């Protein structure tokens, strides 16, 4: 790999890790505005994380090694994911090592560890959360993969960089299949990031919570890492979405560092809009019963498959 490639790789990773909490903060702020509450600071997530790091960790009795290592593994997996999602430029050497399918695999890794850790303590809520998480995952994961497949059928490749290259830098073409995929992707990312209407990050109401139920027992640095990882996940999803459906402005491999840097403000803009939209959706829609979730995600899955079929039918 070239030095430039290595540089852009590190840069994008750094940006992801650094900006992820900010994105969360932004979404919360927008939501607060939309629900006309007084908004918390944009940097609240950073403060929370710092505070949590400083605290003494409390570990429940009967917690095994899985419980303790989980936060690190999840965080690691999310970093890996961040390293293969082109946010600024498609010049990502690491993307050779893991393609779209591996990306989904990494998400699955994180999910499974979270679920296992949640079951580790042996509390009612822990296993409840784990069950629901896996349940959501078993429909969301295929849907996401189908979305990625649609894109990779268009570009004839499963490596995200190539996909984005094709989408961004070929002569403009209309891909009807992407429309289906886009809708599906939105629904999946709502579910995957524990957002309304599937989950509600802002509550500990046992009937509704999924993600929160799993991490009830976590505290201090563990919790900090988990929160950070969650933020990273949101960031990754947003970047995937942007890269697949609004790839304009992402620098190509050969463009050099100016282009890469030039892409940065555009990315921030896109993320801001995306976050606002997310907040809007969350405000407009109501939390659905947990057993509505399969229908919701099933729809997403079918839409994605439809996209694939449309793609086969009309040809890419």
């Amino acid at each position: 790999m070239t030095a430039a490639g290595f540089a852009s790789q590190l840069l994008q990773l750094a940006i992801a890790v650094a900006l992820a909490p900010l994105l969360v903060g932004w979404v919360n702020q927008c939501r607060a505005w939309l629900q006309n509450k007084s908004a918390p600071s944009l940097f609240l997530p950073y403060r929370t994380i710092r505070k949590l790091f400083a605290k003494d960790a409390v570990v429940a009795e009967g917690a095994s090694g899985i419980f303790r290592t989980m936060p690190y593994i999840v965080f690691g997996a999310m970093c890996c994911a961040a390293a293969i999602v082109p946010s600024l430029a498609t010049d990502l050497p690491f993307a050779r090592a893991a393609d779209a399918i591996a990306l989904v695999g990494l998400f699955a890794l994180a999910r499974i560890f979270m679920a296992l850790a949640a079951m580790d303590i042996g509390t009612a809520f822990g296993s409840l959360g784990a069950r629901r998480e896996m349940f959501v995952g078993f429909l969301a994961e295929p849907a996401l993969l189908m979305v990625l497949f649609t894109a990779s059928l268009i570009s004839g490749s499963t490596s995200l960089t190539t996909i984005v290259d094709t989408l961004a830098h070929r002569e403009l073409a209309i891909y009807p299949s992407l429309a289906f995929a886009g809708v599906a992707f939105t629904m999946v990312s709502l579910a995957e990031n524990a957002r309304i209407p599937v989950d509600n990050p802002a509550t500990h109401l046992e009937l509704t919570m999924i993600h929160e139920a799993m991490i009830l027992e976590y505290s201090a640095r563990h919790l900090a890492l988990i929160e950070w990882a969650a933020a990273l996940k949101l960031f990754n999803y947003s970047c995937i979405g942007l890269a697949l459906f609004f790839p304009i402005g992402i620098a190509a491999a050969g463009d050099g560092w100016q282009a890469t840097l030039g892409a940065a403000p555009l990315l921030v803009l896109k993320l801001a809009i995306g976050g606002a939209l997310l907040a809007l959706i969350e405000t407009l829609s109501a939390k659905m019963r947990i057993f509505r979730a399969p229908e919701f995600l099933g729809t997403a899955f079918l839409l994605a498959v439809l996209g694939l079929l449309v793609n086969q039918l009309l040809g890419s």
Partner: protein
Amino acid sequence: MMPTPLQLVIAAIAAWLAIGALGLLRPRDLRFVSRFLFPAGAAVAVALAIVGGYAVGKLPQSTVLPLGLPDLPFHLRIDSLSAFFLLLLGATAAAISLFSSGYFRSSDGTPPGLVAMQYHAFLAAMALVLIADDAYVFMVAWEAMALASYFLVTTEHRIPEIRRAGFLYLVIAHIGAIAILLCFAVLQGGSGDYTFGSMRSMILPGAWSSIAFFLALTGFGAKAGILPLHIWLPEAHPAAPSPVSALMSGAMLKMAIYGLLRVTFELLNGQLWWWGVVALTLGLVTALFGAVFAAVQSDMKRLLAYSSIENIGIIVAGIGLVILFKSYGKSLLAGITLTAVLYHVLNHAFYKSLLFLATGSVLHATKERSLGRLGGLIHRMPWVAWLALVGTLAISGIPPLNGFVSEWLLLQAFLFTPSLPQTFVNMLVPIAAAALVLTAALTAYVMVKFYGVVFLGRPREPNLAYAKDAGRYERSALCYLATGCVLLGVLPANVTAFIDPINLMLIGASAAPRLAGNWLFLAPIDADRSSYSALIVLVVIVGVVLLTMTIVRRLYHGRVRIAPAWDCGFPLQTPRMQDTAEGFGQPIRQVFEPFFRIMQRQLPTPFDSAPRYSVRIDDHLWYWIYAPIVRGAEWIARTAGRVQQGRISVYLTYSFCTLLALLFFVR
């Protein structure tokens, strides 16, 4: 002079048989059996694995033993395909034999010596299946395999369910064998020569070759557990002692896959595209079925058995895809798919044996098979738990372990289906891919349930507190298998390169140069389209994890306080508040309601002191297919029974009428 691989394999078979015979000498001497026979068997297995690994890619060798029928002596042959499966058999058997040396205790069932005899006969039969080169020796080995495994399944024959399971198993195995025999009878195409050699050279007319293929699919499907011939599998696997379940699931099912490959791609020349469609559909239905049913099981071995059905389904679907590609002359894609299939076969052998053996250890430590009574074992038996975790992740298809690689390859194959001539097929492939992915995701669900309920949480029963960790032998066997899973995961390029000769042999095209860009990367077609490097992923993840750990430690204190679980501040938590297996599977049961036939649902009343919720689930197929068949057969038999109705003058009338009829017929 140096003995040839084939001779070595034959020697290994003989050695296994000899070890078995030794078992007969001192049937009740447990020490002798467990300390001597099983380790010896393991040694032979290792040797076999080495020979198999060596023989892959070498020129085929064949020989004729002066056994069997006078006109049809035993023809034996070893080529890359059989060598690969011999490697698989040896590698799996080595671990399982090692485990068995620590596993078998004296019980009121079959005495240990006899068990050792059946066990090694089973191994020998499987090896013989793999090197058989004519119909007779194949059938002999095949049925001997079925018999030996049947007796192993019924080791604890005092338990009625086990007897029933064994019977079901043997009957379905026999039906399958009949189909296989018919298949060979078709394959010889009137030449009357039943050596595989002549079948290879035989060109069958289309209809006949289709018949042969479907007979093979039925016959081998019955052994592999393809719908709707799967019903014996979830009965027999739990019934058998765990090493045997591991051997059946890890190795024996693969023998069926071997047979299917052998017949489809070698003995039949020229495949038709729609066979592929059928196999693909059947496989995916089987896979989905297996996954869904695994999700709602509450017996850990049943759960694993269903997951075996699922994996077999995936494999068969892959084979279907291979047929599809090969019939359209897309040999490169066919090669990739076949690689994926074989890879998955290998993976399944490793992680499924690992998991079954782990359940064996759990079973020994707790005397408990039902998930509802386990839990928290990671504290009592850390070795088994952590090694089982590897298996769990591997089977759930998580990078960078081995399960992911084969699924990745298979998905690549699905994804890069170029537009095939049939639009219908083009429509099918994406749907198939979707089904495959769905199955994979369900597997993750299932395995989390399995692992979480068995090893994590708090013990659901008091007696679990006395569970002891696995012994020396069992541990080492588990370690070995887990290492296998990791290695197969992180060095895919080497494995695919190793498998490649089989592509060359069955497809006639090599896929490896494309598959293994270099030893680090796995890149089918070319690196731009898709590439994957498990090792790098592993390194990066581990690196990031360690890095964060050190940083966090460096910047902040590492203080930890142990406290009772918070759990939203709920008071009085008992282990009974955790999800049971039923509870965990409940969402799936709700989503896939129509799949199941709820046998009985036992709801607790408010006044129960120790309320239990349990659901017994059964699959429709038994009632839709088997029960009617049985009833029909009984009806016919009853009708035929009227012939024999005891009255002598009626009997006389029979013979009189026969006489008259014949005489009339003569004139």
